[in-house]
């Protein structure tokens, strides 16, 4: 058998966004019939790479050679027509249109009058989908199919449009295990047909189940590539996170003091058995006053969802959250805030700041009713609070009246922290508090978290930065696929242990527990 042909050769691909070097001289080679895992933590450059390949963005430097030709796609449609299709985790089809019509949109069979030949379209749709193991009434609207079946339709569409490369961006994030199996068998079929697949996922089991080769990105560079089978899980995780195995740092790079806080008191927040369909499966977490609890796990493990469920922003199907002895009304943000639980959301730009309002208005947004009498804002009291926090958090703005949308990421984050600190919360839920902010601001935020905990606040810390998580947390709860898989306390809070726990290795003698103890 001849060696499989090279379908794609990417050399020295670079892309800079304002202030960020998103991709820095990355190479990637794909052969026909290869299933290639593309992995890396947040900000590693995966999505930038995919966007460059599929014509969403254009590279600053580097070549993309596709089927022997130098290419430069202006739009995703152009890339798709050339033979590079993308299957997103949110299925990009028309939900209200029928299955068959979705499958054939743009290349519908027509009869002699130029009208759509519905009979033929339905028959061919059934045949095509049948080959993917999807047996449904193709006349029904697409949205009435499960996500898995919808993904199959998207796949079938991609293959039917003669894709040579199919990029799958976290395709399994909302699939049931059985649907995942079906997807895998389809991927294997694509492989046999000589189609190259780029598979992006954070679920290690899946990577090992279906991928042949792997590229690991970190901080915009390729840090590893080769056959996946040659790489064991632990090495994979440590490569991805950029940590040497067994390395123990005495001197941290973060601004956390490393002192463990007093943690004797009763929990100020206690959540039991939080369940959200497809997202959380019975997660239990407790936070004591003065304690920083880290939430560990890879992307998509349910960290953000846990924080949102605790703050009432995500409605739970079952489970309860008790704050200072009082149960919270589920699914109500105002109730959680009144009880003293504040969330610093992960998506700062769209869920955190109100970009068109000033620094002053953003800081005072939540606390405003407390600074008002009969609905009239006391400007003097607002000024006092704003001045206090601008000074304490060293928020850099031209004036308190500058629009928050114009500030740097770090200063936006500080404004949000100020918004919640002004409320005197009991528990702060920090979802990636230092992501996308500069080094100086990062250190300041870390220092602040330490101080807050020392003052007796309960803190939940989510971070993809392992160092930050390890050095900042007194205790780390490890999540995987929406469930708690372990908990590290005291001396166990080390990178080594954390990575083993994330990778699903629990070496003998390790005290990785079920997190049911309080």
């Amino acid at each position, binding site marked *: 058998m001849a060696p499989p042909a090279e379908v794609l050769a990417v050399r020295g691909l670079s892309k800079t966004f304002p202030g960020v070097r998103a991709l820095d001289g990355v190479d990637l080679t794909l052969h026909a019939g290869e299933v290639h895992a593309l992995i890396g933590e947040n900000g590693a450059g995966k999505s930038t790479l995919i966007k460059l390949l599929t014509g969403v963005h254009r590279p600053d430097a580097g070549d993309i050679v596709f089927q022997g030709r130098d290419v430069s796609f202006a739009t995703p449609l152009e890339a798709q027509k050339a033979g590079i299709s993308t299957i997103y985790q949110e299925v990009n089809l028309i939900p209200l249109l029928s299955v068959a019509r979705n499958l054939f949109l743009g290349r519908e069979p027509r009869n002699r009058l130029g009208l759509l030949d519905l009979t033929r379209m339905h028959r061919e749709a059934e045949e095509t989908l049948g080959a993917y193991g999807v047996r449904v009434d193709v006349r029904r609207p697409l949205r009435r199919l499960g996500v898995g079946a919808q993904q199959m339709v998207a796949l079938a569409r991609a293959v039917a449009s003669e894709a040579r490369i199919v990029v799958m961006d976290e395709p399994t994030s909302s699939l049931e295990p059985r649907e995942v199996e079906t997807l895998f068998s389809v991927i294997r079929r694509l492989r046999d047909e000589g189609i190259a697949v780029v598979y992006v996922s954070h679920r290690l089991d899946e990577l090992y189940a279906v991928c042949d080769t792997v590229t690991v990105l970190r901080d915009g560079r390729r840090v590893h590539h080769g056959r996946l089978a040659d790489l064991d899980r632990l090495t994979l995780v440590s490569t991805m996170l950029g940590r040497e195995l067994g390395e123990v740092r005495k001197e941290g790079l973060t601004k956390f003091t490393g002192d463990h806080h007093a943690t004797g008191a009763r929990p100020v927040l206690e959540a039991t058995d939080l369940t959200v369909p497809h997202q959380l499966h019975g997660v239990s977490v407790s936070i004591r006053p003065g304690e920083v609890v880290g939430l560990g796990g890879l992307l998509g493990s349910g960290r953000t969802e846990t924080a949102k469920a605790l703050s009432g922003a995500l409605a739970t199907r079952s489970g309860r959250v008790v704050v200072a002895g009082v149960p919270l009304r589920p699914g109500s943000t105002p109730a959680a805030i009144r009880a003293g639980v504040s969330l610093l959301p992960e998506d700062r730009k769209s869920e955190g700041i*109100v970009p068109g309002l000033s620094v002053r208005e953003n800081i005072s947004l939540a606390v405003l009713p407390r600074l*008002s009498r009969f609905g009239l804002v006391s400007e003097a009291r607002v000024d006092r609070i704003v001045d206090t926090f601008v000074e304490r958090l060293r928020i850099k703005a031209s004036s308190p009246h500058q629009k928050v949308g114009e500030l740097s990421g770090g200063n936006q984050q500080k404004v949000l922290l100020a918004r919640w600190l002004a409320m005197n919360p009991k528990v702060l839920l920090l979802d990636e508090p230092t992501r996308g902010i500069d080094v100086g601001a990062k250190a300041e935020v870390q220092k602040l978290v330490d101080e807050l905990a020392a003052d007796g606040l309960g803190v939940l810390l989510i971070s993809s930065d392992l160092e930050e998580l390890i050095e900042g947390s007194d205790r780390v709860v490890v999540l995987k696929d929406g469930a708690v898989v372990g908990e590290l306390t005291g001396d166990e809070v080390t990178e080594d242990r954390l990575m083993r726990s994330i990778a699903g290795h629990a070496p003998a003698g390790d005290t990785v527990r079920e997190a049911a103890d309080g």
Partner: protein
Amino acid sequence: MAEATLETVPLDRARVLQWLQTYGVYAGVALLVVVNIVITPHFLTAENFRTQAVQVAPVIIVALGMALVIGTEGVDLSVGAVMALAASVTALYLGYGLLPALLVVAVFAAGIGLANGALVAFVGVQPIVATLALMVGGRGLALVLLPQLEDLRNPALASLGSGDVLGVPYLILIAAVLALLVAFVVRRTTFGRQLLAIGDSRPAAQLAGLPVRRVLIVVYVVCALLAAVAGVLATARLQASDPTSLGNLMELSAITAVVVGGTPLTGGRVNIAGTVAGAVLIQLLTATLIKHDLPPSWTQIAQAAVIVCAVYAARGRGKR
């Protein structure tokens, strides 16, 4: 393609557009005043100013409420119908005295506003459709209550419509006071800031624990109440209740005033001074064309052009 080239236009153009959006309306008013001083005889008379101001007062009052609704990224098409409803309810209850009549008007208007607000905030219907339903139903209700024009003879009502303080008609005073009040609410109250936050970024407002639904409902109620005030004042000036034609196309005039005044349709910003100036601009434009014997058809075409220009200038701003 069009988008790509637009993003790379030199800053100058963006700056011009931004300047136009913020100050264009005042420049327009100034320009019209100057042009009129030159070409229109008797323009600079107290009597003329009085007439113009009395005519524009109801539009300003309605536009104030509309500005608040648009600030939440909504729109209220039912304001004209509420004016008509206010007119017919006034006629029905004037027998019990002016004050009781006004109270009943307020109850009806608040009911319409509550229905609008509930549809938008609780059911999640798009504002344009929710208020469309109330627009059709509200005008119908006004006509059911009072099928045709009715002359009203009530001294209190008459003095409300044509009386004045030191030569300044009540109508103008009321409009001015309401404008100041609404501006104050937007700038200085909890409610005003919450309204802007909700219009700017609803997810962020929700996660910040703001009472999103309550604010939305209050906004629609306030808008309906202001429209009712305008309806009563217009009725008082006419000394007749005319539910068939009162407030027709008022929603258009109000939306035009708000948009021309630099309040973006995308929410998060409310420009009260601009809204007042926007109403004045349209009024002056109409008056100028009429004074120079240009037919109303020209006014409408000119108004259409002004709207498109204003929206074009506002494009892409506000949300960012």
